[in-house]
């Protein structure tokens, strides 16, 4: 595999590992890794680095909802314009145009159900192009961005074998 592509896989599995450790796994030097990361960032392939947080373990209220949005387009307004407007809200953590029975899938996060539903009804619903919203509150998260939140299976291999 091409080093740059493989670097992406390594960062996807653990973005906090050291440049030296990445270099060792790729069989290149640290300066090459730095250069490749710079490239990936400036090309826009890598847009950021974030922790995967299990809010249940943080000890504060954190509510998330997946909101279905239907919109009506007109001659002046396309999906792009609507998306740009919705994406500006810090409460919106992800926004996707999707196929199927509604148009946008919006993840909204807040400190309480009240916060989230208020946000949807007062900031999103009034947007002229939005014709309908359906809010699904997340009850339990089992897996996030590839990380399983339950207990892993124990390694039941013998600690030493021939």
């Amino acid at each position, binding site marked *: 595999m091409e080093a740059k592509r493989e670097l992406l896989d390594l960062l996807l599995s653990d973005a906090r*590992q050291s440049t030296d*450790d990445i270099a060792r796994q790729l069989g290149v030097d640290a300066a090459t890794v730095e250069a490749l990361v710079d490239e990936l960032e400036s090309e826009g392939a890598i847009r950021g680095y974030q922790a995967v947080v299990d809010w249940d373990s943080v000890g504060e209220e954190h509510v998330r909802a997946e909101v279905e949005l239907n919109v009506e387009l007109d001659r002046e307004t396309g999906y792009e314009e609507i998306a740009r407007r919705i994406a500006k809200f810090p409460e919106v953590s992800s926004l996707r145009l999707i196929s199927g029975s509604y148009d946008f899938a919006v993840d909204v996060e807040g400190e309480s159900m009240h916060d989230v539903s208020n946000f949807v009804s007062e900031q999103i619903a009034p947007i002229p192009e939005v014709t309908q919203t359906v809010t699904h509150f997340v009850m339990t998260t089992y897996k996030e961005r590839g990380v399983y939140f339950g207990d892993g299976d124990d390694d039941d291999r*013998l*600690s*030493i074998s021939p």
Partner: protein
Amino acid sequence: MTEGTHSPLSKRARETPPSGIRRFFELAEEMDDIVSLGVGEPDFSAPWAARSAAIDSLERGRTSYTANRGRKDLRERIAEHVTRYDLSYESDEEILVTAGASEAVDLAMRALVDPGDTVAVPQPSYISYGPTVTFAGGEALPVQTRAENDFVLTYEDLERAGAADADTLVLCYPNNPTGAVMTREELTEVAEFAREHDLIVLSDEIYAALRYEDEHVSIATLPGMRERTVVFNGFSKAYAMTGMRLGYALGPAEIIDAMNRIHQYTMLSAPTTAQFAAIEALESCDDAVEEMRQEFDRRRKFVISRFNELGMDCFEAKGAFYVFPKCPPGWEDDEAFAEALIREKRVALVPGRVFGEGGNGHLRVSYASGMSELKEALNRIESFVESN
């Protein structure tokens, strides 16, 4: 029981030494917080498709014996599968499905070795070859491969050890414990030696799918070798199916037939559930194997570079999932090093001498563990090396 009193055990059982890894296993088992680089099997599970085929066969009640040689459809797929190594074997007469490659090794020894026969066993190598020679009544002749050759077996190694007088030669590449591989050119010398001295070659190629820099070459594909070679392979390492116990032997019909005759009395047939899993593994799991191989390759590069940075000389092992670094300067004795390391830092690895004299001063390090464990283990080894 002391010497001289009457033991119910056979001489053979009494003379079989416990495996050299046993002491370390016991040490490791009684400690918490061990990071083990001593594991000789993949940390992955078998590909889901293979597991699912096993479950499906159980649901359908397919729990009877199979033909002694293994299911015909499995043998046909094996015949097809090994063409990727340019090996061509006839599924009815030249392939035997066994309970792990280990059984195949044992059967071959029993089918080929007479009392008084000599089997040349290159070392360092997997711990079972010598004992299976002994069980068959033969004599194992150790042939030391050398660190300066990156543990590749050479014509000179064979000559020096007196293997010219042997009847059979074991070959194990990609190698456990060193991770060494042999190229076509290097195998050519060994093949020449085998032909000149009329040796049968038992080639254990269980790690064939785990080559990182080049393609696996089987000695059986070299001129004049097919008729004198038995190849062992299986599903344990490539498909992460160790516990399913399924392997196979490929060879001339006469030898496979003899092995099958012993197999039919001792094993009857290889595990049926595992055979169903294996059929599916060959059918649809190439991608899963390739993914594991790539993951192993990253870890391999990581551990080799870490050991060399620590001053623990580590040649570039290109196969299996082992590297074989030297003990750091100041440590001659691999066993003392391994024992101090496990006691002080809770890192388990296997002293090289367990795999034969040629392994003295080296350590077998398995990278069949996740990156985070590997990093932790290497950090602990680093702090051990710095403070000792």
